[in-house]
């Protein structure tokens, strides 16, 4: 092979030359920002998702700061100033059936509404991911037992399930969070299981098994990073459902108890006023709508931002 020709140097070049593939546009490569860096970068350029995120942040901020920034006392009613219309001189967004300031109540109500809307999803995300990832990765009979048990929950419509559980547990903020968590755990677990089953069959998971890593290490290092993203996207899309369900429970008297302001409960108590002052009666519903659609739009944006890759 030492027989020489102009190109006989090529083999030597190959090891070293292979070391620096020549025309690979040497300096065109920008150091990667990592996966989440790319997702963030893409998300920042998505006007819809960013608007939705801003709306959510604004509402959260207002809700958190409500006790200090409400224009009036949200609990003090006035029998002579009931059901003032929107745009009233004292009551910017009108007053409710007991003459309390709607704006202040909406601001303060956001706290509870967001709390009992978001908390069950966070809890269900943790529990459901755990169950789903375990079932998906271990497979076999454990998968069968876990997933068939979860299927039982799917036999009931989620609204009915939430009402039944809340009814059984009794009214209250804590109980409605528990019942909503129970509603979402099976849904998230099912998504987690299917994503994990998919990832588990990838060659890189096999390669990790071949390196002698323990199941726990593989789950933590190789699997988790790849499954949590899609599950997280799904979970954010559940926040809107959760908010509506939570409001629904309060509306039915199974959640927050009066006089605590909460959007669903406000919707309930104002329903009698729907013919007197429809706009005011619809305001809590509007708030729920805006928050839930913002969460939905944001989760859509997140999903497409996570489709980066190649």
């Amino acid at each position: 092979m030492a027989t020489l020709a102009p190109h006989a140097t090529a083999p030597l070049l190959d090891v070293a030359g292979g070391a620096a593939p020549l025309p690979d546009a040497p300096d065109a490569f920008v150091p990667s920002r990592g996966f989440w860096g790319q997702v963030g970068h893409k998300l920042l350029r998505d006007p819809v998702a960013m608007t939705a995120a801003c709306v959510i942040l604004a509402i959260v901020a207002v809700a958190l700061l409500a006790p200090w920034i409400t224009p009036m006392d949200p609990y003090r009613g006035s029998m002579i100033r009931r059901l003032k219309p929107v745009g009233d001189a004292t009551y910017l967004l009108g007053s409710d059936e007991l003459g309390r300031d709607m704006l202040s109540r909406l601001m303060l109500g956001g706290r509870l509404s967001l709390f009992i809307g978001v908390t069950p999803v966070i809890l269900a995300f943790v529990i459901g991911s755990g169950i789903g990832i375990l079932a998906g990765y271990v497979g076999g009979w454990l998968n069968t037992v876990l997933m068939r048990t979860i299927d039982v929950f799917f036999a009931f419509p989620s609204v009915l399930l939430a009402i039944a559980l809340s009814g059984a547990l009794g009214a209250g903020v804590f109980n409605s969070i528990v019942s909503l968590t129970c509603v979402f755990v099976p849904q998230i677990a099912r998504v987690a299981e299917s994503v994990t089953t998919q990832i588990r069959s990838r060659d890189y998971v096999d390669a990790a098994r071949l390196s002698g890593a323990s199941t726990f290490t593989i789950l933590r290092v190789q699997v988790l990073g790849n499954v949590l993203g899609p599950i997280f996207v799904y979970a954010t899309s559940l926040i809107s459902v959760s908010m509506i369900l939570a409001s629904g429970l309060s509306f039915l008297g199974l959640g927050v108890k009066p006089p605590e302001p909460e959007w669903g409960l406000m919707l309930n108590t104002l329903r009698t006023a729907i013919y007197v002052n429809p706009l005011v009666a619809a305001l809590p519903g509007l708030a729920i709508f805006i928050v839930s659609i913002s969460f939905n739009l944001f989760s859509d944006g997140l999903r497409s931002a996570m489709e980066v890759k190649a």
Partner: protein
Amino acid sequence: MSRAIAKEPAVAIRGLKVVFGGVVEAVDGVDLTLERGQAVALIGESGSGKSVTLRAIMRLNPERRTRIEGEIRVAGRDVMTLSSRALRALRGREVAMIFQEPLLALDPVYTVGRQITEAIRQHEKIGSEAARRRALQLFERVRIPSPERRLDAYPHEMSGGMRQRAMIALALACRPQVLLADEPTTALDATVQIQILLLLRELQAELGLSTIFVTHDLGAAVEVADRIAVMYAGRIVEEGSARDVVLNPHHPYTIGLLRSRADGALAKGSRLETIPGSPPDLSARPPGCPFAPRCFLAEDRCHVDAPPDVVVATGHRAACWRTEAAHAAFQGDRARLLEAAV
């Protein structure tokens, strides 16, 4: 279809440029003529633009994100200016295409027989009985055993080789004159691949088809093609008869491809001659010859000026400043091989 334009080549491509998303120059000035009854193989590695060129003939590249320049004439008609209706008539009726993966090209919810009769009846006014008879003939033609029974099979019920035959039958359903084949044997096992290659060669000869055959496998190209066009980075770097290109190459890239084949190694344990590096970034094309950075013969002007199409013999061209030196290097290889064999 009319006799008047029968003298026109089956496919004539002039100065074809395809740009994706405004930046990726997938095809950069391709000239290619397919004479009637001829089989041309377009060979190249992934990203060389061979499939994009093929798809451009049928205008199959996504129209919104693609900018196409140049001229494509099929049987004398300008494909670029066809209305979408005329284009539909062209597809299938005059130009048919077969793909690498028949499972993706065939519809999973209909039997293959139904798909073929539908295709026939879409283009011709013909009864369902007659169409089925034609389908049966086609199945016999592509050598599908027990064709009557197989017509009623769904694509997933057939083996890989049978599916590929069924897709060829579907492509031939409307008696096209031009057959475009995109890596039709790449996914097949060796013993099946050779059967399909022989079938394609036979059909081409018997039906007088004009075929463009895209492949990355030089061997497959030699088996089916009269002429071979070698593509690199969106350009045809060498084109000639199969004999000329394989036995008498004049472009350093073609020579590199021939050298890097594992069957060309002198002896076990010797190293393979490789083309160093990797193909250029098509969105940031260097000036001059796109192959220059990897070329064992490159000199200063290769990095500056794009090489001309050099006609090295009748019907044999190579886009290179140093065709003579390249050819001499190849002859040297040959001599050494012979020496080693003695």
